[in-house]
């Protein structure tokens, strides 16, 4: 369309601009209320997530490319070394698994003697990270698995070394997850050494978590391992969450200052595991 001078158009919005802007703002506020208070908008959000999937894939192309060139340009000797290392690691892991089988058998026997329910094994599904949230103060990631792969809200996510986070929103082919380091995340844990139960909070840093409500005389030492507990939590029991790096009693305040280093490699992961417990997940938990 030819224009007389670039940029100068006849505006069509006329006198109703204020009214229409106001209408849109009211609509937005209603949407926000609905999204905050109800689950009604989860399905439309899923559709929109499917729309943004190609955008995210496009946006992650540069980093995918750098990774690929990095892999492709490694020397043969380096690969051989890595291969060697992995073989050794697998040997060690296999040896441990043999022990594990024996221990599991023993554990089953003991549980049978105690008349306890046998512990269900967990299925896992591998998901790839396709996006890390652009907002640096929200620790959220996007995964390439959605409802079509059986992913559900609040599902637990781990990596090879520990708990990563949980699913927040699910779309048809993608899902968004919250890392344990997100300032809005809290997870129930217990200390392996003595069974002390507490809650670990994210503080917006990838290498540090915090325990806020432990009394100054709590039985905690630096190096204690924290694992998930299944009591009132979305996570199956026994997965490592982190290790105490600092325990500092503050006599003038009610609670001690306790910092935790997460076990999972939160900044370096490319793939994560979605835990799928054998039991039916949809038995209506809500916050």
């Amino acid at each position, binding site marked *: 369309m030819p224009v007389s001078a670039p940029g100068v158009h006849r505006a*069509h919005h006329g006198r109703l601009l204020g009214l229409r802007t106001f209408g849109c703002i009211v609509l937005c506020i209603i949407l926000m209320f609905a999204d905050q208070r109800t689950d009604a908008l989860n399905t439309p959000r899923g559709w929109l997530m499917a729309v943004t999937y190609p955008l995210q894939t496009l946006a992650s192309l540069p980093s995918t490319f750098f990774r690929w060139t990095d892999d492709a340009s490694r020397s043969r000797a380096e690969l051989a070394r890595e291969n060697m290392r992995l073989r050794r690691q697998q040997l060690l892991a296999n040896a441990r698994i043999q022990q594990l089988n024996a221990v599991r058998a023993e554990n089953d026997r003991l549980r049978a003697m105690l008349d306890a329910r046998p512990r269900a094994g967990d299925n896992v599904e591998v998901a790839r990270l396709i996006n890390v949230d652009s907002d640096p103060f929200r620790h959220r990631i996007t995964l390439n698995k959605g409802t079509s792969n059986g992913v559900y809200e609040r599902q637990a996510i781990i990596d090879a070394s520990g708990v990563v986070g949980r699913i927040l929103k699910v779309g048809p082919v993608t899902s968004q997850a919250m890392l344990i380091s997100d300032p809005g995340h809290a997870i129930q844990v217990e200390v392996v050494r003595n069974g002390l139960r507490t809650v670990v909070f994210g503080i917006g840093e990838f290498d540090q978590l915090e325990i806020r409500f432990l009394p100054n005389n709590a039985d905690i030492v630096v190096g204690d391992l924290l694992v998930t507990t299944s009591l009132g939590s979305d996570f199956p029991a026994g997965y490592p969450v982190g290790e105490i790096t600092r325990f500092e009693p503050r006599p003038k305040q009610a609670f001690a200052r306790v910092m935790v280093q997460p076990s999972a490699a939160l900044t370096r992961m490319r793939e994560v595991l979605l835990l799928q417990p054998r039991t039916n997940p949809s038995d209506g938990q809500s916050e």
Partner: protein
Amino acid sequence: MSAIRQRLWWMPFALIVAFMLSAIPLPAMISPFRPDWIALVMIYIAIFTPQRWVLTTAMVAGLLLDVLQGTLLGQHPLALMVCLYAPLKLHLRLTLVPIWQSMLATASALALYQFALFWCNGATGNELGLKAYLAPLVTGTLVWPLLLVGIDILRLERVNSD
């Protein structure tokens, strides 16, 4: 005799590029300084092509941004509405002002945008640091002249009509 013509596909193209720039993973050091690309492109659209679809485009772009960032649905469209009103209302004047005044106008529109986001985050209990709101405002204002030139090149083409 040559005339200046507007390309048809410039708007979706600019918005898609803006979405990609908003979604590209950045190192944690510089990530807080990422400009609000969608807001900038929408301000450009509001000033230079204030046609019928600006508000609708802003609604859709804002909703997609919400989904991309995992915020409440409606938060980014609301912020866009708040920041686009003045540029839409004053677009005739804003096309003619020198570049530094244009930067000032953009800075105030971006400030409104950030304030609306701040308000939404506060109302829903997600408090973020002040730096999260100020850094994109500064970088957004600084990249505005580049964006003006860039989108002008994308949008306008010279055709010879002898």
